Every structure is written in structure tokens, then in C-alpha cells.
């Protein structure tokens, strides 16, 4: 990931098996990490990225650095067991990337080939995950499941079906 919110420098996160704790002071960028993942999975609502427009995910500058004009996040998936959908199953690892340029919108790629947002969303839905997966719980969101109306909660059940 690079240029995404407060992660202006290229950063790599290895997600290991089991339980990994993420720690750090208030405002250091922990929730931004979860957003980078959901954004690359095809999240299309700026509000759910806590911004007013999708360009708000691009590094806006800080005391010592100037703003960037683009941001990019890539997800590497280990596919040695060949369990990916057939269209992408030919290689050992799958690379899904999303890149945004200020005022120019986003471009998605799977293994280097340009695809539509819909293709990326379907790819992750087949793998039982995605930007709206109930397993990705955003800060302060846990109470919303209880406060939601019964009809809204059914949508959660459909994710499981």
C-alpha cells in the first residue's frame, strides 16, 4: 500500500495465521489499515471510508510532507492450493490491486490485467469475504447490528447463505 491515507510511504502487511494484535496510540493509523483492505476489495462508498469523496483516501499531506496525487493498495493471495475461481486459477499467487488518482477515479487489476470493480467484488464474494463482510467489523460498528431493524439484519444472514 502506498499513499493511502496516513500510509504515505510504501508499506507491507503480512497477515499470519492465528491471532495478530494491532496496537498503537490514538490517531496513529490502525483503523486506516482495515480501510485499506476494504477499499482494495471494492468498497465504493466514500462515507464508509469516513470521507466526503473517494479522493479523501489519498494522502492529504502532513506537517512535513506534501499531499500526494494518487494512492494504491495491492492484496497478495496465496493460491498454491489452486482454490481460486477458474478465471484466475493459473498461477501460484493472485494480485488484486486498486489505484486511484485525484479527480480521475479508480482502476482495478487482477494479476496485472485491468478489470471492473464488479469483477473484484465477485472475486472476494466467491471467497466468502469482501468489503461488506460481517467478519470485517469497523470501529464503533458492533452496536449497529443490535440497533438495526429486523429487515436490515436479514442482509447479514444472506451473506452467510
Amino acid at each position, binding site marked *: 500500500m502506498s499513499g493511502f491515507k496516513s500510509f504515505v510511504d510504501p508499506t507491507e502487511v503480512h497477515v499470519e495465521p492465528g*491471532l495478530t494484535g494491532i496496537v498503537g496510540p490514538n490517531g496513529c493509523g490502525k483503523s486506516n489499515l482495515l480501510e485499506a483492505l476494504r477499499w482494495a476489495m471494492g468498497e465504493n462508498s466514500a462515507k464508509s471510508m469516513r470521507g466526503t469523496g473517494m479522493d479523501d483516501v489519498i494522502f492529504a499531506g502532513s506537517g512535513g510532507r506534501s499531499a500526494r496525487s494518487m494512492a494504491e493498495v495491492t492484496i497478495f493471495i496465496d493460491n498454491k492450493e489452486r482454490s481460486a475461481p477458474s478465471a484466475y486459477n493459473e498461477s501460484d499467487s493472485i494480485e488484486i490491486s486498486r489505484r486511484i488518482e485525484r479527480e480521475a477515479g479508480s482502476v482495478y487489476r487482477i494479476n496485472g490485467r485491468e478489470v471492473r470493480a464488479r469483477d473484484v467484488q465477485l472475486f472476494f464474494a466467491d471467497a466468502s469475504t469482501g468489503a461488506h463482510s460481517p*467478519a470485517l467489523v469497523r470501529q464503533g460498528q458492533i452496536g449497529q447490528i443490535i440497533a438495526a431493524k429486523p*429487515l*436490515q439484519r436479514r442482509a447479514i444472514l444472506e451473506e452467510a447463505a
Partner: protein
Amino acid sequence: GRERLLAAFDTVNGHFKRLFTTLFGGGEAELTLTESEDPLEAGLEILAKPPGKKLSTLSLLSGGEQTLTALSLIFAIFLSNPSPICVLDEVDAPLDDANIERFCNLMDEMTKLTETRFLMITHHAFTMARMDRLLGVTMQERGVSQLVSVDLAGAERVLAAE
């Protein structure tokens, strides 16, 4: 689609009942489909009764009780259709120490039952101590996030330095 939804409902409900009693150390809870005969139109209602209390509307439950009930539902859905990754952003914030302990026990059980990789964002030292490893996020240069690897002793230092 109707059969699939009903089958998913039954599995999720089964897991939900068990997880609720584990997290609360007692009591009972269940899911029901309401507002329509047709499962594809129905709403999902949650009935929850913490140990020793009467069944009441969900909104009367306390902050901590609502969090545990919501976690039971999320994990129930999760167990019936496991996902490769799960991220929980400060879900332990409203919990007291005893419930943090039960929550961490549940997380341990989940890692044994599924292949899922879990990322838990937390400020609680209690929860940090139960993790397999810790990933630190700092802003040594103000406004710029960087990742650092942290061991548990280091986490105490991160906590103290926060």
C-alpha cells in the same frame, strides 16, 4: 434461494445459541424470522436473555451486553460460512475484564475451529497478552503511519509511551 436461506438460518441459529451461552456464562438467546411468512421477505429478530434476567427488548441491554450479543451473532454467521480473514476494530472497548477474558477464550476457540486469520485492533493490555503476535503502528514522523514489529514486552512500552 428459499431453502438455502432457511438452511443458513438454522445453522446460524444453532451456533448463535451456543456462542451466546459461552460468552455470557449462562442465559439463553435465539434468532427468529419475523414480519413475513416468506423467508426471503422476513426480518431477523434477536431474543436475548442474560443469566438471571428476564427476556427484554434488546435496547434495554447494557453497552457491554449488546456487544457480546452482537459478537455472538457475527461469529455464528462466520462459523456457518468461514471467511479467510476477520478484522475486529476495538470491539473489546465496552467490555469489563471478566468479559474480555471470555471474549479472548472464544477467539482461541475460533482459531482452533477455522483456518481464518484474525487481526484484532485493541488498546487493552489484557487482549494484547492473549495474541500470538503484535503489530505496532506508530507515527514517529507526525502524520505519517509506519508499521513496527512488537513483542509483548515491547507492547507494554508502546502502551506506556502512548
